[in-house]
């Protein structure tokens, strides 16, 4: 019995250390695999047998695997991921806005307005100068083009946010399906110890973390380690069941304000549940689509397009208000003012998107700058218009330059919040990931040591077999 027992012990040792080598090799192979948690081979001593009054061990048995995943760290990383991607997306959008508004350069929109007002100031001295009037028309056209272009580009940015949300919804639905799929696979792939396949656990965690980059995700685990995923309290994955998201645009019939929501869509119940993502790219893009870049936004938030529209509207209204009762160079002998204006639009209120130079002043001599007919040297109107720059009631109790400075200040503060937020979060994220990697990731030195260890143990185990073989040969030869 003893001789055959040694052979069995040797066989078990060979298998065990081969298992150890497999685990180590897998660790080394997956050093750079995203979300991979290192594994450790766990050995236990096999059940002993009683011989000559003593219990003798029968080698190694009951190998199992240990994974180094920490639920607390996973949860914190998920939280940070959502905030980080939200800030990153904010920064991208504010960088685009900064380019559109040409800030902080000397060629910004406020400067274009100041330039036009300065020309009116020059015309106050030389109202009869056709050359200066030509310059005025040119500056007005530049202003119009700059505001049109800024408005169109900001609208395009809003459309981009919508497209990003749609893509993210598709991505989220794939991830939701993936997570539900892993829950199912994990239910079917228990190892001989009844443990989950760690590979699928890791893959599921990667998918959950990806989902957390889109919105605020929380996870609960059932007793059988099935992950149930929620976005801001709304259940997206319930065991093997996936609930899908859908973007939903709502247009207000009265104001035309369009707002976008992310909804949980239950096909069977034809039910939509609004999800407020609270973090991630969903949160950032929805915020920009529904507020920052929405010119019809009715919330109390800061809308760049709305502010630009008010600025343009007030400016055009003020200038036109002065011009409409004034006379051009060729308006002799008329009693009623010809009613010409500088700015107009093709439809309704003059806004950043539709402002244009009126065709009624295409001849520079027709620009009405005189308060009385037949007096080209009368610059009362030009002087009054140039005084708009000092008008403290221009808009929201501010002068044009104050309004624009404060407007840019608000944009800059939002951008600054995003940059500072990202900086702080990145640092925390780096620390958390380091902490998690310190526990979960592969250490090449450690694996090299394990390789040597298992190799040597494998060699030693093979020596047990060789020795047992020799003993058996000796025993067989005894009988000859």
């Amino acid at each position: 019995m003893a001789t055959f027992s040694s052979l069995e012990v040797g066989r078990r040792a060979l298998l065990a250390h081969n298992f150890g080598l497999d685990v180590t090799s897998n660790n080394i192979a997956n050093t750079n695999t995203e979300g991979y948690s290192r594994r450790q081979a766990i050995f236990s001593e096999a059940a002993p047998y009683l011989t000559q009054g003593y219990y003798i061990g029968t080698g190694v048995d009951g190998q199992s695997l240990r994974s180094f995943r920490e639920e607390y760290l996973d949860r914190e990383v998920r939280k940070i991921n959502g905030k980080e991607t939200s800030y990153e997306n904010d920064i991208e959008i504010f960088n685009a806005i900064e380019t559109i508004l040409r800030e902080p350069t000397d060629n910004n929109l406020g400067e274009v307005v100041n330039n036009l007002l300065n020309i009116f100031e020059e015309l106050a001295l030389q109202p009869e100068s056709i050359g200066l009037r030509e310059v005025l028309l040119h500056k007005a056209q530049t202003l119009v083009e700059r505001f049109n272009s800024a408005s169109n580009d900001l609208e395009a940015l809003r459309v981009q946010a919508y497209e990003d949300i749609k893509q993210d919804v598709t991505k989220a639905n794939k991830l939701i399906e993936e997570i539900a799929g892993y829950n199912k696979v994990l239910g079917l792939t228990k190892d001989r110890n009844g443990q989950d396949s760690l590979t699928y656990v890791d893959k599921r965690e990667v998918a959950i973390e990806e989902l957390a980059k889109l919105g605020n995700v929380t996870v609960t685990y059932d007793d059988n380690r099935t992950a149930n995923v929620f976005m801001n309290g709304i259940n997206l994955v319930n065991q093997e069941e996936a609930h899908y998201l859908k973007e939903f645009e709502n247009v207000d019939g009265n104001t035309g304000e369009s707002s976008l929501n992310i909804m949980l869509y239950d096909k069977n119940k034809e039910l939509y549940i609004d999800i407020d993502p609270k973090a991630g790219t969903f949160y950032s893009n929805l915020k920009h689509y529904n507020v920052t870049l929405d010119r019809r936004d009715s919330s109390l938030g800061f809308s760049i397009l709305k502010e630009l529209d008010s600025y343009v509207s007030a400016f055009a209204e003020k200038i036109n208000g002065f011009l409409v009762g004034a006379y051009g160079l060729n308006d002799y002998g008329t009693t009623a003012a010809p009613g010409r204006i500088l700015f107009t639009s093709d439809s309704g209120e003059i806004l950043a998107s539709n402002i244009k130079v009126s065709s009624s002043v295409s001849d520079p001599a027709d620009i009405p700058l005189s308060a009385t007919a037949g007096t080209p040297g009368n610059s009362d109107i030009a002087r009054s218009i140039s005084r708009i720059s000092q008008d403290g009631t221009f808009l929201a109790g501010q002068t044009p330059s104050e309004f624009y400075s404060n407007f840019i200040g608000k944009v800059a503060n939002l951008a600054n919040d995003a940059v500072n937020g990202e900086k702080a979060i990145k640092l925390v994220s780096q620390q958390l990931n380091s902490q998690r990697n310190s526990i979960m990731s592969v250490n090449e030195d450690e694996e090299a040591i394990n390789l040597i260890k298992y190799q040597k143990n494998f060699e030693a185990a093979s020596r047990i077999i060789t020795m047992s073989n020799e003993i058996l040969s000796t025993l067989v030869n005894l009988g000859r």
Partner: protein
Amino acid sequence: MRISSNMSYDSFAFNIEKLQESRYKNLLRQSTGKDMINIADKPGSLMDVKKIVTAQEQRSNYINLNNLAASEMRAAEDQAEAVITAMQKIRDLSITSTNMIYDGSGVQSIGNYIKGIVTDILRNVNADFNGKYLFSGTKTNANSIEADNPGMNEMPFELIKNEASADNPSGFQVVFKGNMEQRKINKDTHSTEIINLTADELFGENGTKTFEAIIDIYNILLFGPDNTERENLESLSREEKIKIAELQQKVAHDLEEITKNNAKLASRRERLETVTEQMTEEVVRLKEVQSLREDADVVKVLSDLKKEETVLQYVLQSAPRLTRLTLFDFLS
């Protein structure tokens, strides 16, 4: 602490990214001379700079315009000065004409001389600056000058000849076709200034009153009491001399008015120039404040850049060691 392989790489990548970003920003600061590269850098300063730049540009614009306006006012002053000299001459000639030594033809010569001076005065007051008439109110160009009949020119002042009458045997009359409106400019952000002399400030009521007295003098010198042209030997009568003395006093009074009004114009110009000088100083101060808010501290930027480049160099040098040093490197 257990150090996994990925930790080293991740920290290395994170730190390199931070260093490169900071270095890139400082390089931009160095090349642009500006401290603010993005709007997010210093929102407070950005708002201040916008307000400062606007104030500065407005002042610069006022400085240029005030200088132009001052040139125009100076031109008006020069022309008014020439008018004053000419009117003084008319006055002197009027007094001279009453001397006993002049006979009829001598008196007529003086009368014609006075008429020539009137023509000179009209040339002075019809002068333009930069394409606009100086003394025609807000009717500053030829198109706005409305002539009563087709024979008239498109100048603000014109000497015309009407039918002879008992009151005006020569029929001469100076007509003014402009208006008496003041031309104003904004001289700074909150006040305005009048930059012209109107015709009535120069020549009294309707912008021609002074000329009426001068033409009356001319008529007395050219025509006798019966309104016929003065004979060669017909010198001025006592009544005519008294009349000329009265008219000459009127001219002298108007001369005083023009001198006074021209002095007013000069004082307005000086006010304008004083304001302009103040604004020039303000622009310098505003530029200083703008620079403090906006410009990069070159010494700081350069020392930061040097520091970052040194650190970056060492970090990059450490990369080969980071990728090489594991136990595997020593296993054979």
